[in-house]
């Protein structure tokens, strides 16, 4: 188990405060937050590269708060890989073994083992300057894994790659985690990446951890407006609880009354994911709960789908696949009915 207990760390004029995290051995933990949130600082602090002002860091039952980085058995991969430019790929991979004065035979054996896991045989003699982005990341991973670390820290390993290499490496990371069972903390600013890879997710921002949990929890039940915005929830409405139903409550916002299955008291915001909203062109005559009629004000093409903005008012953003979009023939100005289930309405 890895745990951070109220860690405070300062670097230049930036500070992270009261960072508490806990992850099980073998977890794939995504640390996600906007640029400038201090993600790299936190990673380097876990690795022992910045002095901790207060709080504790424990790795596998051992307090490492004041331990030197070289004693922590942590593997680290930076966004730009930080391969040693004066060494070949092979020398980079075995660097950690060399400095630990592992015997030559053992180094050879270990190199062969790592190369059999991460396929970089054809690169071993090259200098890092001659590698592509994806190849560099693989080598950096191999180097980090060669010393059999207890924890692997990845700092935006995929951000600077083109989409194809990125996807290849995502699969590679998934496979490595599955095969080696190593504990991973993976930093990213891309929430989609967090959903794709993470067993657990923590959202970091405004100098601290904002929310942590499973992808489903963070994605569907954000605990604050910051997290809701960051996860591109889009439909966030301010308001207050106005009543109770059999198994939930009614949330009143400007122009809409939302039925939710949640009973959280004192909630000030309700949110609904665009993909949880049904849109139809047939306008039902009898009013159902969470069913509203509105006019399409804007249509945005987003990759393989469309965002349809329906003004009830307020304006509600709905996600529609290309196929449905074509079939319904949606256009700006058209009247449509939107509907969503009570358990899609999350209040906080």
């Amino acid at each position, binding site marked *: 188990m890895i745990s951070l207990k109220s860690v405070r760390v300062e670097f230049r004029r930036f500070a992270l405060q009261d960072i508490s995290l806990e992850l099980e051995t073998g977890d794939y933990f995504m640390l996600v937050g906007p640029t400038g949130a201090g993600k790299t600082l936190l990673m*380097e602090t876990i*690795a*022992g*590269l910045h002095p901790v002002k207060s709080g504790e860091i424990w790795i596998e039952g051992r307090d490492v708060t004041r331990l*030197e*980085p*070289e004693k*922590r058995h*942590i*593997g*680290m991969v*930076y966004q*730009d890989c*930080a391969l*040693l*430019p*004066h060494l070949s790929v092979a020398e980079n991979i075995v*660097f*950690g073994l060399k*400095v*630990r004065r592992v015997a030559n035979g053992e180094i050879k054996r270990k190199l062969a083992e790592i190369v059999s896991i991460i396929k970089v045989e054809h690169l071993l003699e090259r200098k890092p*300057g001659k590698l592509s982005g994806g190849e560099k990341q693989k080598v950096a991973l191999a*180097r*980090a894994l060669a*010393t059999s*670390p207890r924890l692997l820290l990845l700092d935006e390993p995929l951000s600077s790659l083109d989409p194809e290499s990125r996807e290849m490496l995502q699969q590679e990371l998934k496979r490595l985690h599955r095969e080696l069972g190593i504990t991973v903390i993976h930093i990213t600013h891309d929430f989609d990446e967090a959903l794709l890879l993470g067993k657990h997710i923590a959202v970091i921002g405004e100098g601290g951890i904002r929310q942590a949990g499973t992808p489903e929890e963070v994605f569907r039940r954000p605990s604050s407006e910051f997290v809701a915005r960051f996860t591109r929830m889009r439909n966030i409405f301010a308001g207050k609880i106005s009543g109770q139903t059999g198994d939930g409550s009614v949330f009143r916002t400007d122009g809409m009354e939302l039925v939710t299955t949640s009973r959280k008291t004192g909630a000030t915001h309700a949110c609904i994911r665009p993909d949880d909203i049904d849109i139809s062109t047939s306008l039902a005559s009898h009013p159902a709960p969470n069913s509203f009629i509105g006019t399409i004000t804007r249509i945005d093409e987003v990759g393989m789908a469309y965002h349809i903005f329906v003004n009830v008012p307020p304006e509600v953003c709905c996600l529609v696949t290309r196929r449905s979009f074509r079939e319904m023939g949606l256009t700006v100005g058209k009247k449509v009915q939107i509907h969503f289930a009570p358990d899609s309405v999350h209040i906080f």
Partner: protein
Amino acid sequence: MAVVKKSEDAGRKSIIRYRFLMLFTLLGLIIVLFILIPLAKVVFLSDKESLWQAFIDPTTINSILLTLGAALITTAIGFIFGVPLAYMLARYDFPLKSVVEGLIDLPIVVPHTAAGIALLFVFGRNYLLGKWFGAVGVQFVDSLAGIVIAMLFVSVPFLIDSAKEGFKKVDVRLENVSRTLGASPWQVFYRVTFPLAWRSILAGNLMMWARGISEFGAIVILAYYPMVTPTLIYQRFESYGLSKAIPVAAILILVCAFIFIGVRTLLHSRQKDD
């Protein structure tokens, strides 16, 4: 309309541009020639016969060997003391750091004779360090040790600055990663930081060497004898006039130019690697 207008525009523009850049080129050319002509004239247009005479004259030869040797010793001393300081300045923050950085560069602008006076005031026979060293048989006035001290004072900033820049260019994250891989700070220094900064350090050493060879003002005050080549040039000029000084000056300029070409080649090929 389009084609005619276009060629007009383009024509006019390029003349204006030409005029502005032509002035700049002209002004620049003057300064280039101002530096080139004296050096080229001394090296290429001096009397070949007297150049050869100077070259086989044992006084000249000995003084050049002395100068190169003294500068080499200076560079070695500078390397031992300067590189660690450069590393500390590049990697660590400490109180008064910017004062130390300023102090290190001060010898570049301190007048050379004033530097000589200052050194003599400390290393002279009757002064502080001069006394101490004198007690163990080392004296600085009119000795190789004095030449080295003078050269060291005026040339060590070049090494420290170059090495510091070299260390700074080494990405801290390379050192961070190396630490997490199990390297101690000392291992990080000699396996990562030093090898990566090596070219800058070498260039700084060469620069320091060349600067040591070129020194006159500080040396002439601390150690007129044994005579280093810059002093020899001055002495020849004072005693026999310009024509006797030229051949020695030509040889020394060539030596320094060659070292300097080495520095630039080193730094240039490094930039290509990056």
